[in-house]
Each structure stands twice: as structure tokens, then as C-alpha cells.
């Protein structure tokens, strides 16, 4: 329950981080909030040879709403998102309450969660739902990767070992969006998480998008177009059944595959209803 030895390095800006990562080699890892990484190190599931602590980099903790959408600095704490009032992105503040517990949210960072790439993580699911772009900086410069391509498998992302996430960009507001999930205890990892985004008139769906967490190795986009359908409970329930039929979730100690499918149906319907409300 004590971490293996590593060397500790502190970075004061992004370029400094990139330079240190290059020097320390592939076994070095970035330390942000550490709410997943340090727990894994205590279990010795992770044994990085070196940590580059980026928590003292100034100016990477921001929520900037502009004409296009929202830019979230990598070091923005979950708690900052939870307590912010962001026009058109209320879904982020509401969803933040599902992340761990209050002290975890005070310490954990937005970029850190995206980098960790847990398929049940609220920010990973919402990044895919809202078609966010992940901004990475490395020795070859800056690049942007769509969230839909960023999460590549079980805790696998498109970020290279010498790159750092600096920002997450949400391209357009999502006034009708919601995330909901189920876990056995409050604050636990979701067994299944469901998120939905809608554009609608008073009684009809114009566009829809549904993304799930906990049913695959990365967030899963459901193939269901609700355009033209009435915006009512029946539509949401039917969409839940469609989503459940599309997934082949894993079985583990938290629930069987069949149980996860039933959760998927219920949670998708709930997320759509919340999004439409």
C-alpha cells in the first residue's frame, strides 16, 4: 500500500513539462490531481519511474466561454466546473456531482480525467457526447484530436507518452443534454453511465446523440437517430431498448452483462428525459 520509488520533478510551464518528459523517457508520467494515478501507485498497479508534477503551472485552470463554445483548461478542478455557471453547458456542472466525492472533486482535474481515459468517467463520456476536441502539446508542437478518436481502448488514449493535454474544447453549447449513471454506493465508479444530447422543438426531436460509459472499453456512441420523433416518454423508452440491444457489456463483480444491458435501457431513457426537460 505504499508506492514504489520514483523520482519527482516539478514543472512550471507547459514547455518545461514537455522538455522534462522527453528527458525522463517513456516510463515517466504526468502528475496532475493524482486522484486516480496515486491510488494506482499505492496499489503498485502503476510504477512510473518518474513523475512530472504539473499542478503548479499557472494559467491552465480556466473555463472560457466564447462564441464557438467552451474551452476548459487541463488543470481545472472538477469542483470548479461543479460550482460554475456556464451558459449552455449546465450539463457539465450537473454531471460533475457524479464524480467521486467532494474532496476528490476539489483535487482531481479535468485534463487528468481525460488522460486517464476510464470508460466510465463522466468527462470522457461527455467529451464524446459533445464532440469535444482534446488539445495536446508535445515536442512536435500542438495538435487537436477529436474525443471520438481520442479514447482508443481500455485506459488507452491517443496521447503519446511525451505529450500533455493542455485544453479540452467543446465546440457548441448543449442546452438540452444530461448524464446519469448508476453505482451501488454514491461516489463509486458507474456500473453504467448514459448521456444524451438533443435539439428539439416543443414536441419533436430535431437531432439526438446518445453516448454510454461502462459498457465497453471506451465510451460507446449509440446508433439511434430520433429525428422527427415525438419528444415524449415513449420515444425515450424505445431509444433505451435500442441502445441496450446494441451493446455487449462485460460481466464482472459489479454486475453481469445482462444486468448492464437492463441498466443501459433504463438509464438512456432517463438521460433523454432529463435532456429534454
Amino acid at each position, binding site marked *: *500500500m*505504499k*508506492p*514504489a*520509488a*520514483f*523520482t*519527482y520533478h516539478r514543472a512550471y510551464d507547459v514547455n518545461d513539462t514537455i522538455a522534462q518528459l522527453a528527458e525522463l523517457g517513456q516510463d515517466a508520467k504526468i*502528475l496532475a490531481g*493524482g*486522484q486516480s494515478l*496515486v*491510488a494506482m501507485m*499505492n*496499489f503498485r498497479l502503476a510504477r512510473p519511474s518518474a*513523475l512530472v*508534477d504539473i*499542478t503548479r503551472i499557472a494559467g491552465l485552470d480556466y473555463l472560457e466561454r466564447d462564441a464557438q463554445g467552451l474551452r476548459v483548461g487541463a488543470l481545472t478542478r472538477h469542483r470548479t466546473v461543479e460550482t460554475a455557471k456556464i451558459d449552455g453547458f449546465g450539463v457539465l456542472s450537473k454531471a460533475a456531482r457524479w464524480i467521486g*466525492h*467532494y*474532496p*476528490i472533486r*476539489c*483535487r482531481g482535474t479535468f485534463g487528468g480525467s481525460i488522460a486517464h481515459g476510464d470508460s466510465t468517467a463522466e468527462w470522457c463520456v461527455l467529451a464524446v457526447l459533445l464532440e469535444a476536441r482534446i488539445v495536446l502539446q508535445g515536442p512536435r508542437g500542438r495538435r487537436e484530436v477529436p474525443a471520438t478518436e481520442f479514447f482508443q481502448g481500455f485506459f488507452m488514449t491517443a496521447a503519446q507518452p511525451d505529450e500533455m493535454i493542455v485544453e479540452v474544447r467543446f465546440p457548441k453549447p448543449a442546452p438540452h443534454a444530461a448524464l446519469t449513471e448508476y453505482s451501488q*454506493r*454514491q*461516489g463509486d465508479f458507474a456500473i453504467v453511465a448514459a448521456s444524451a444530447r438533443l435539439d428539439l422543438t416543443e414536441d419533436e426531436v430535431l437531432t439526438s446523440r446518445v453516448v454510454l460509459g461502462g459498457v465497453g472499453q471506451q465510451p460507446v456512441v449509440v446508433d439511434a437517430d430520433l429525428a422527427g420523433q415525438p419528444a415524449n416518454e415513449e420515444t425515450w423508452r424505445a431509444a433505451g431498448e435500442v441502445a441496450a440491444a446494441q451493446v455487449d457489456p462485460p460481466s464482472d463483480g459489479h454486475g453481469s452483462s445482462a444486468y448492464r444491458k437492463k441498466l443501459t435501457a433504463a438509464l438512456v431513457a432517463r438521460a433523454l428525459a432529463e435532456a429534454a426537460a
Partner: protein
Amino acid sequence: MKDIHLIALTVNGTEHEIVVESRRTLADVLRHDLGYTGTHVGCEHGICGACTVLLDGQPVRACLIFGVQADGCEVRTVEGLADGDELSDLQKAFSRCHGLQCGFCTPGFLMLAEAYLSEQDGVPDESEVREVMAANLCRCTGYQGIVDAVRQVAEERAG
């Protein structure tokens, strides 16, 4: 060779300069290097909350932060709550409401509640208090006494 660092931190207003190995958690630095054994260590992976302290005013799991990261920071532990022999309002409320039995989890709960209460303007409703206090584990009390204590202090502080 050990990776060691000279750090300076303030704990409950007292300044300390110590040499720590990078892999030493803040919980172990507080307990073993500085003697603040009021901070308890339960699970060591961020689940139980027994090691909760305030780092620059924010509640954190001291097992999920390395001591070296607290360099230049202010830490508040359970030893910082009472004024000499005079318990704080929160400590008194825990006692009055039977918010503790064996006491192992109590320092973590007190620091969690202290952080939460310091953010409040008014009196939070019971469901919110329950949600916040769910961050930590207690195996004796059933939580009701803890929730009552936190709500009483919120009411007292709101006047």
C-alpha cells in the same frame, strides 16, 4: 539511491522544514516525520477518507498526495481544530450528537465537515449534508449522529 527533497510546509500554523523521499505520502509525512498522528490512515487508496486534511483550505485525501507536493503549502489537521483544551464547535457537536464511537474515522470526518462548513452561507439541507459526508466511511455510528452534528454546527454558525 533515494530521491529526496527538502520541503517547507506549515501545519496548523507551525512552520516545518523537512527532508522527504518523493514516494512518501502526505499522510505519512504528517504522522511519521512530523508527529501529527491525529491524521489516521485507513485504506491508503482514497476510499475511506480517514486521512482527510485541508491543503491550502481544500479538503484532500492525504494518502493521494505526496508530501513533496505540499512544499510551500498550509496544511490543517485535526490537531488544529481545538483551542488548547477547548474543543471547537464542530468537535463538541460530534460529542453531543454521538457522532463517534471508536473514533478512528473521526479526524477525517471532522476535517471533511470543517471544509464543507467553511463554504456554506446558510444551512444546507439534510440530503446535501448526507451526500457530502458520504465521502468518508464510518463503521460504527450509522452516520446519523455525524449528519446531525454537521447540521447543528451549520445552524449555529448561520446564527
